[in-house]
């Protein structure tokens, strides 16, 4: 099937198999390997991207369902969003770095994309709201404490900006 997708600001016209998962399309056809795969049951959130600005698990959709859509991955987040002044990093990326919110980094792209969506809907979340909001994203390394801290920090920075 023929699809047209905009991925991180670049337009792609491609013929894809109907069963191709969006995450595999992003990784293997669009070369956006920044978005990894962590499970096969839509539980881990590692593959989270923004589809027309809203977070989705790209392993739980087909590429053809993204026809006509704009996809933002971790690799396009800073450029797509406003506020890229700080060396090309999105406030969430900067906060994850500063608060040591990642260890192996495998969950990080999905975590940041999910957090970006969370802050869009709720710019001033409480700790509990951050924890509940990230429920669909698993991290095995950090115990989440610094992830929560980073998201709260990014939220505050956006207020100041």
């Amino acid at each position, binding site marked *: 099937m023929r699809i047209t997708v905009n991925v991180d600001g670049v337009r792609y016209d491609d013929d894809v198999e109907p069963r191709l998962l969006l995450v595999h399309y992003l990784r293997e056809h669009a070369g956006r390997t920044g978005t990894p795969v962590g499970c096969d049951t839509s539980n*881990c959130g590692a593959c989270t991207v923004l589809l027309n600005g809203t977070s989705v698990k790209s392993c739980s959709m087909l590429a053809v369902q993204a026809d006509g859509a704009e996809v933002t991955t971790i690799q396009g987040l800073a450029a797509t969003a406003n506020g890229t002044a700080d060396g090309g990093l999105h406030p969430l990326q900067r906060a994850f*770095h*500063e608060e040591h919110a990642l*260890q192996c980094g*495998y969950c990080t792209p999905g975590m940041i994309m999910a957090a970006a969506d969370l802050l869009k809907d709720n710019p001033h979340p409480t700790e509990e709201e951050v924890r*509940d909001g990230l429920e669909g994203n*698993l991290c095995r390394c950090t115990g989440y404490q610094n992830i929560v801290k980073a998201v709260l920090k990014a939220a505050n920075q956006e207020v100041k900006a």
Partner: protein
Amino acid sequence: MTAIQETGNEVGKARVRKEDARLITGQTNWTDNITLPGLAHIAFLRSPHAHARITSVDAHEARNASGVFAVLTGQDLRDEQGSLPCAWPVSEDMVLPDHPAMAVDTVRYGGEIVAAVVARDRYAAADALELIDVEYEELPPVLDMEEAIKPGTTKIHDQGNKSYTWELANGDLGQAFNDAPVVLERTYRQQRLIPEAMEPRSVVCAPVGDEYTMWSATQIPHILRLMLAMVTGIPEHSLRVIAPDVGGGFGSKLQVTAEEILSLLIARRLGRPVKWTESRSEGNVAVHHGRDQIQRIRIAADADGRIRGLDVNLLADMGAYLMLVTPGVPLLGAFMFNAIYKMDAYRFNCTGVFTTKTPTDAYRGAGRPEATYAIEHVMDDLAAHLGVDPLELRERNWIKHDEFPYDTISGLTYDSGNYEAATARARDLFNYQDLRKEQSERISADSPVRLGIGVSTYTEMCGLAPSRVLGSLSYGAGGWENASVRMLPTGKVEVVTGSSAHGQGHETAWSQIVADQLGVAFEDVKVLHGDTQVSPKGLDTYGSRSLTVGGTAIVLACGKVREKARAIAAHMLEVSVEDLEWTEGRWAVRGDPDQGKTLAEITLAAFAAHDLPDGVEPSLDSDATFDPENFSFPHGTHLCAVDVDTETGKVKIRSYVAVDDIGHVVNPLIVDGQVHGGLAQGIAQALYEEAAYDDSGNLITASLADYLVPSAADLPSFITDRTETPSTGNPLGVKGVGEAGTIASTPAVVNAIIDALRPFGVTDVEMPCTPERVWRAINEAKGGAK
């Protein structure tokens, strides 16, 4: 004993990590990202049965499917695949069954590989799997360890279902238990766990002529290369193993896997590069599991609670085969059941048992969480039995800070520690007295939500390991680590380490150490690792060894650089070597500090080599290998408060305080992160996770929908702090921290739950302490509904 070195100003700083730049922007190099011209994709067909004979495999249709390059069965590979390695034959009579990478005639656990498809892409490979027709003759599964070793039970291997029995004893146990005023007997269950590193395993293997490069999501590129050579007969120097960015391990990637061996054999057969990446559900049956013990504990004590003797009997589930260090894992616990306590006699006896389940092996803590759980649980039971505060009981038994170095009953020498200080700090942070008061108020009010306080005063042995000790335990390798330092003409430094990080932040922490040791800027240090061609010598990352052993190797290598530089500096300054002293990155003349040369100046002079002293080679580079004389022994006091809703069985962690003593700290940011993650994994064992099998031997928690890795919403924020009693076993004074949180936290949480329920007569709740189990425990103790 090694003198502790004064540290400069980098070590101890909360440096944000160098690694993050690529990880937060998606520029990471995971194995599954790698693609090569002509890359073929492998998919494995796995046994749906726990135990069965393979009567026929028909791959005809699959071989003819579109895009399929090859289909291979166990029969095809039987003469070349060898047996997967086990590096730890714990006893001379240990049963070590043949373990083919691909099953030939019998499968012994659900998930064992029976065939491989090699195809043009992952979808075509998966499609063709469905075209393979395997006929099985089912055999009875063997799922229960106690049943497994009874006579008459179906034999999983010809040699039977018992692998070994191993014993360690010291002191007169009979005397300790005879006439003891108090003897408690308990049986605890360590459930089976799945490590669940977030990056699934992945392998790419590329042949170039008769040489092979393998990229693998592994913790152990060096050990893997050696083992690939030994298993396949391909010469070691024709193999290069690369661990690119690796997304967590926790022991699960401390393995030489069937998939790695088969990828290499298939790449050789087909003469083309191949890739295999597992799905999570595949990984949950195929990645080794952890824990799984039945622990029978007897403790004898005086009326005042002083421990006289401890008797430990374990059944440890090996699963269907022995993998890299499977049989040795429970034995790491042999030295840890006695924990921080003094006693007169001790016996540890462990029987390794085969079942028709996924093999077990190292999972974060490996043997030590199991031991710590049992001793800390039984100490709380003993305290309750005697009516003594659990912290008070521990204090009566623990080694005092002025008794170090202390020779323990299990034969180790603890070099340093201060249990009093860590406990005092934890009590304060936790508001111990106030919480105890609130607890009794709730009991008096017969509140439906009870408060429980759990104690865990743990220690552990890590920094694996003195090679001699490993030798005495029959382990197949040493425990040293290697480092080399390369001084570049511009004054930049490349440090090559044999440790192989997969989230630990070595690039940052090692840079801090080198910056202090050589007086160079943190930014001027580049850490190289994880590729056997770049870092030819190493024993990799596990057992909280990288800093204590690998970090020390770096210190030693830096010392050699300084000494080489000194001779050149003396020549440049026309003074004698003895006249120079090292200050802030320079060799300067004693008493005349303006006269000196920076390391960068000396490095450039060595590079130019125009005017070097006679006999001095034009290089400052160095290489050092460190073999520790002892383990390191982190310790700490963890306190956990839980609210238990007695009507629903629901447990909520209300506060968690962790005070750890890991000696000097190189990077507090990284240390806190390690502790947080470790706590989460230990709490997950206490409350959420279990690899469960049904009666026919199917893993019923094979996906992340069923195996409950906790999310942010399931965990609290932790209060962490440290006391600092330097290790005397290495020049940095450091101890390991990678496993401490996991080792300490499981008993703290379970003890808290039981503490809340003791008024009802509850003495144990089997892990994971789900609401249902907690509710049942209350009602059974009350004599109510089961």
